């Protein structure tokens, strides 16, 4: 009971901190909830340190490099139907065809997606898409910067995109799998391990070289996201003058 009360007090405190009047700097950065976001990032750091990283460590210990690559390939492959739908929603016919080709080749020749012959032998490279990017292509703005517990940076547009992808767009929702909840739980658990394992060194590098890790992460997230939305197309005109 004390634990629950404690959590409620902390949550209320975070909320109140987030409700303080935003400074001009916060508004300029479109981050009016910065104090709350900073606290959430600290919380995420603790979850990462005490739970996620040790779990990833065990994963790396038990599963060798080729096994982890196979898991990565499988997870990428089962997300391709979602990528395909978002390619179509964005009117990217060529990219949709590429996604379909990759899914067909890797699911068959690639043995249910554990291998990636589409890239390696057929030279059909992969790309990512999600409903957050689709909303951006349709003209929806990012919204104020937000850091979600556990998930990390999730401005409103991207959070909505994630929810729509997970609950509506993902075709696997409509495939009758026995014990669907275990399939979902296993998939998201391994997605977490895979993603965190892949980003570990990069995150370490950013933390090491930053005077303000929160602001670095915010900048990196936005730049990376905008690059994804442009599908990697360079946009020289959008850069600030030196």
């Amino acid at each position: 009971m004390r634990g629950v009360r404690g959590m409620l007090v902390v949550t209320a405190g975070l909320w109140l901190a987030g409700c303080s009047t935003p400074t001009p700097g916060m508004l300029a950065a479109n981050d009016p909830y910065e104090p709350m976001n900073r606290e959430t990032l600290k919380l995420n750091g603790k979850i990462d340190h005490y739970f996620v990283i040790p779990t990833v460590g065990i994963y790396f210990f038990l599963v060798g490099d080729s096994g982890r690559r196979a898991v990565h390939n499988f997870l990428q492959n089962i997300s391709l139907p979602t990528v395909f739908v978002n390619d179509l929603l964005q009117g990217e016919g060529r990219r949709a065809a590429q996604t379909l080709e990759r899914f067909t080749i890797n699911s068959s020749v690639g043995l249910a997606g554990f291998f990636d012959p589409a890239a390696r032998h057929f030279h059909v490279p992969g790309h990512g898409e999600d409903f957050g990017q689709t909303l951006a292509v349709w003209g929806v703005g990012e919204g104020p910067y937000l850091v979600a517990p556990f998930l990390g940076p999730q401005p409103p547009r991207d959070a909505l995109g994630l929810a729509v992808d997970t609950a509506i767009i993902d075709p696997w929702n409509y495939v009758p799998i026995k014990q669907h909840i275990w399939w979902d739980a296993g998939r998201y658990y391994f997605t977490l391990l895979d993603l965190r394992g892949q980003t570990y060194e990069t995150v370490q590098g950013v933390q090491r070289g930053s005077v303000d890790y929160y602001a670095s992460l915010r900048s990196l997230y936005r730049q990376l996201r905008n690059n994804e939305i442009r599908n990697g197309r360079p946009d020289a005109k959008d850069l600030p003058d030196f």
Partner: protein
Amino acid sequence: MKDSPMPASETSGIPALARRAVLALLVAAASLFAAPALAAPPAEAFVQANVQKGLSILNNHGASTDQKRAQFETFVLGLTDMRRIANFTLGQYRHSASPQDEAAFAAAFQSYAVAVYQSYFAKYSGQTLRVTGSQEHGPGDTIVQTQLIDPNDHSGQQPLEVDFRVLSDGGKFVVIDFSVAGIWLALEERDQFSSFLGQNNGSIPTLISHLKDLAKSYH
């Protein structure tokens, strides 16, 4: 022609004029097609030659760590305009900075930036740089697009996209920023320094002290 209302002297010049116009158009069209056969735009050639040199310095197994660090520092300082990059990363705080703070910050930023660049590019030291094109941001301000090709990677995945922003100041080229996978480093530095200064009453000496500590931590 007999019924033409124009004097004969003028009508005889029209075919010649038309021939000259067609010739001029053909020359113009030919020069458009001939352009790719000329040398690559200067900014692209500059990046191709110089950045590969930087990767070779980092890949030199015959040199000690200290030698590589010193050579890379000399190389980076010759390639970039550190003062300009430092001033950019101060963002809005540049206008209220004293000349002494600005100079001290530029020095601290230089040590920090060289250490960070070395740490980033060391991971790719065995790879080959290939220029794939360029875009103009403005006059004398070019974004040169490159890919880093890993000779040991046979996975078929797309090579890493690294872009360089090159200014040509009075005929001399300088690199003022680079991006990896669409993330521009000087933009990220400006964002984090602005945030840091906002949290520390705009104190540039405090930022300088942190940058010096970070630069030391890379050695």
